[in-house]
């Protein structure tokens, strides 16, 4: 139980540190998706899901030779509440960790799809505004000719 408590505490410390050290994973989305709430939500979900996943890494690094049974059953609750993934009643940590990683990867891919489209949209908007300005100029020029 002590090892589980220890890993949980280390993970909490890491979470706080990410915020106070201006970690890229946190601060980049904050600016990049400032005006795109849908992408912002996806980025937030991706970040906190990663945080849950890092519990597994912390355990493997610090207690590689201990049985993870208690740890795993404790973490299940976090996985369910934060990463939004159903409980699986087995002792296979590898499966869970893999599944979570897949989710994070797919979220990131989705975000990229959104970002690519935003860039296209912004380019189109720019073109449109430019066309309007050119139109005004042309209209004024033709008026003057008369």
């Amino acid at each position, binding site marked *: *139980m002590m090892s*589980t*408590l220890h890993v*949980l*505490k280390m*993970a*909490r410390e890491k*979470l*706080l540190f990410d*915020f*106070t050290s*201006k970690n890229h994973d*946190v*601060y980049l989305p*904050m*600016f990049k998706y*400032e005006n795109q709430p849908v992408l*912002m939500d996806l980025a*937030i979900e991706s970040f*906190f899901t990663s*945080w849950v996943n890092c519990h597994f890494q912390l355990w493997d690094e610090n207690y590689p030779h201990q049985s993870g049974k208690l740890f795993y059953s*404790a973490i299940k*609750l*976090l996985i369910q*509440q*934060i990463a939004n993934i159903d409980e699986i009643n087995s002792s296979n940590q590898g499966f869970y960790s893999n599944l979570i990683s897949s989710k994070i990867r797919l979220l990131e891919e989705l975000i990229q799809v959104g970002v690519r489209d935003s860039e296209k949209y912004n380019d189109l908007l720019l073109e449109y505004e430019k066309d309007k300005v050119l139109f005004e100029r042309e209209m004024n020029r033709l008026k003057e000719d008369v």
Partner: protein
Amino acid sequence: MTDVMTELTKELSEFFSEVEMDENAKIALVQYIHAKFGNAIDTSFLQEKLRILYEYEKNYLDLIKEYKDEIKFAATIQEDLRKERTKFFSEALKEVSATLKEAQVDSNVASVWIKELVDSYTKSLNLSSGLIEEHTIDMIGEIRQKAKKEAKEVKEKNE
């Protein structure tokens, strides 16, 4: 007069009622036995009771001593978690807010992220608290079980 003495007197009287003896001599004899040995018997039984009681208590105290360190330890962890929780809300959050402000993050964006931070952090704290509480309850259950078992052993030994 203790129960033992009452019992003894009764049995003596029953015994002597079947003996062919002078009535006054009988009474004198019973009284003599009562006077001579009464105290000794009383004291003896009392000592015996005290000894058994002491044995019960000693076992129980040994049990408590055995668990003393664990009990103290569990209490320490609980206390640490409480402190961590307080520190989070009074210090850590302020530091995070300040960092976000200094980095010029939009305040609406900042508040959404902070909300998730608080949510996740407290869920983790609750999980830790829950684990140690469960452990403490299990420990108390263990102590009770052992105490019951040892009380039974003492009883059986002294029957």
